[in-house]
């Protein structure tokens, strides 16, 4: 009888400790869960996974999906190597976000950063020391980086230009 309150106290302490750990690590666990799912589908780091169709009510993978952009996503490991990313011109809105495992956005490349009719090369690197002169560089200080590209769908709903953009995003290890 006397031990029961003590056991309950340890149970409660463990529960509180678990909550604290979970609060700290939940975003990282979710990003790593996405990374594992990405790999399970056969993708390697640096491979683009393109979403080619606009979501509808049958899509129940993520809550509150949006219907105004198409996504392309990949994971990279800037701790292993630097990457180059070629971005072709695109006449609509786009943003490419670089997230660390804590879901913090480390940088963006957007349509504001490119020229209307020219493919632009960006260097994605963990530190700034490899930056060549006049090269656009995104510093991604993280072992694992989740890259999420969002492409605005043209007003007429034609996805051809989005698909062309997705297919011409070239990400390579340097």
């Amino acid at each position, binding site marked *: 009888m006397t031990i029961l309150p*003590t056991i309950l106290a340890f149970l409660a302490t*463990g529960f509180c400790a678990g909550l604290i750990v979970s609060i700290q690590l*939940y975003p990282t666990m979710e990003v790593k869960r996405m990374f594992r799912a990405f790999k399970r589908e056969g993708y390697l780091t640096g491979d683009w996974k393109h979403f080619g169709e606009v*979501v509808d009510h049958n899509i129940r993978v993520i809550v509150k999906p949006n219907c105004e952009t198409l996504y392309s996503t990949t994971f990279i490991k800037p701790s292993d190597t630097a990457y180059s990313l070629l971005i072709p011109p695109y006449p609509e809105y786009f943003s490419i976000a670089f997230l660390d495992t804590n879901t913090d956005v480390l940088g963006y490349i957007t349509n504001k950063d490119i020229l209307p009719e020219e493919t632009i090369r960006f260097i994605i690197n963990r530190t700034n020391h490899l930056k060549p002169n006049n090269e656009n560089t995104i510093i991604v200080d993280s072992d694992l980086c989740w890259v999420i590209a969002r492409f605005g769908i043209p007003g007429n709903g034609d996805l051809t230009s989005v698909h062309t953009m997705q297919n011409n995003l070239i990400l390579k290890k340097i």
Partner: protein
Amino acid sequence: MEFVIAALISFSTGLILAVKYFPFILDYVIEKSQKRGFYNGPWKTHLGVGRKKTAKIEKAAIARVGLGANSSDETIYWNAFTDSDGNDLDSRNEYQILFNNDLPIDYINKGFWSITIYGEDKFLVVNPQKKYMIRYSGDNEGALKFPLVLNLSRSGSMISENSIPLPLRFEKFSIALRCYRPLNIMKEQSTSLSISMPLIKKIL
């Protein structure tokens, strides 16, 4: 010795239970804190998405409901769960969203905004037209003029260019207003309060 083992087992059990059921605990916390947060009229947002300084519990909640969301530099996500009178949005009713003026969006750099309806389960609502949202990019060739009225209704007869279907079955729903490439006035909490956001009016 038995005491130490019992203590370790109970501590570990508590820890494992907390980690395993944390997502559900988080859902409960998010649900209960729905009325709290940063509001402009019925519209709620969080300007700390994707930022290092955001509190850990808020980061966890954001990862639960919007994993991979853009930071407010790029996109601001407003959500409404009630109308402008503070009553829950319910598909038994019909609503109008009234924009007295446009939103502060960087249209020059291809910014745009969109309104999307989600059912109680947070997914897109079933409708034969597969129309889930309206977007405005500043170059809609005059299709949208301000003041602007968007109609929300279960009735198919109201489906027009400026309308979005509500869930066919009676349920609570929410409205997401996504602002891609907002101007600075929307990014700062202090100035964001002064923006004239659209009203949500129950009409039937």
